[in-house]
């Protein structure tokens, strides 16, 4: 069970959140200009590290806003990222 720090609502039970996976995945600016392999990489391939992972969560049962945390995928320990990155809107 995780206590997830929502930057707007504070630490809340994980059941209130929706998981968004890896953070900072940029959509190709011009999808027509990329190769099939690059497009596949954007659609389907994500980092899957054992250890620190920068990821997105959405406070579904609260403020319904997205944010970024850095979480260890073994210990589940969550460390906040810088305020700017935390509240950034992923493009």
């Amino acid at each position, binding site marked *: 069970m995780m206590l997830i720090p929502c930057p707007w609502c504070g630490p809340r039970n994980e059941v209130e959140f929706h*998981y968004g996976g890896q953070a900072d995945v940029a959509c190709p600016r011009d999808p027509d200009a990329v190769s099939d392999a690059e497009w596949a990489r954007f659609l389907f*391939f994500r980092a899957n590290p054992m250890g620190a992972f920068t990821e997105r969560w959405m406070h579904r049962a609260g403020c319904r806003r997205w944010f970024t945390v850095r979480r260890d995928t073994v210990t*589940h320990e969550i460390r906040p990222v810088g305020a700017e990155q935390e509240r950034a809107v992923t493009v």
Partner: protein
Amino acid sequence: MAPRTPGADLPDHPDRLWRAADPERSYDVVIVGGGGHGLATAYYLAVNHGITDIAVLERGWLAGGNMARNTTIIRSNYLWDESAGLYEHALKLWEGLEEELDYPLLFSQRGVLNLAHSLQEVRDGVRRVGANRLNGIDAEWLDAEQAAEACPILNTSPDLRYPVLGGTWQPRAGIAKHDHVAWGLARALDLLGVDLVQGCEVTGFERAGDRVVGVQTTRGPIRAGRVALAAAGHTSVLADTLGLRLPLQSHPLQALVSELLEPVHPTVVMSNAVHVYVSQAHKGELVLGAGIDSYNSYGRRGAFPTIERELAAAVELFPVFARAHAVRTWAGVVDVTPDASAIMGRTPFEGLYINCGWGTGGFKATPGVGWCYAHTIAKDEPHPLTEPFGLERFTTGALIDEHGAAGVAH
């Protein structure tokens, strides 16, 4: 007469089913992962292809990963032709495996009932039954009354929040005892001269250019003509050491058992909508599984609310379960793909093969995987049944979307 020391009359330790091998410096084939898939692959490499200079490397103890943690369900009622071919091949092998290994696997074809709780699920289920039959797989559509006949403890009352509207039924599906499967394979491999090396974690690969020529392990380097991954939830960690990115996400998948009970549950029941799947083991435990926990994790533990939801669904479907107790819960690390189908085949590295992405459903495929993966490794080309499951499909777009039939929400 003087009292005997407690324990003095215990029998000797029984004969071991396999010897704990120390790693040699080199093998024709090194298989990374001593679970069901790794063991079955080694078995068919030896039996079908005459390759016995094999080491199966296991970082923990033999079959102590997801092979020890699954809910033992075996079925082949998948929607698409590619999946049907592979899973039905596996089921046919299961039907002869006890005899072939000369070892009791407690393989019990007690049927699997996949429930439908909405009109859309009814349509999907009827469609899947039709698709299964066209592929030569036994499948029937049962209405709610027939479902209750197949499983009398199932609550088919219309008063349920999500009433049972019917279900797909595969009579040849069932369960097997997962530990026995691993032990039967390990015993056979030992007799064939294959080295089963436990406590040997692979930490990286030996390379010559784009060719993989061995592995680095916690027990020293091992040269290998070919290296085959069968590491389930930890595949990404291994592939990352080569800079090989795979479309996998590792999640916790939880399961639990009740105390030993009299036989009450004659079959296997799965429900995608309310999310629980349950059978009763030979020994008497109710064995229940749920969906994955949503976040990435290698922690081998999940959150309690997942279990709570699963048990709420189970008690609604089976009111008699309200009197049972969950005595043990656990989690495994499962590697999930975007289309809920496995990835099998060659890699961009010569001499390196992958079998991964089985996510929540690898146990049922064990002998089929072994058969096809052994072919891929021995001949350096995909087995026809697994060719559609190659890594390329994520670039070509020829996905094999089995989210409907996979039975576990991803």
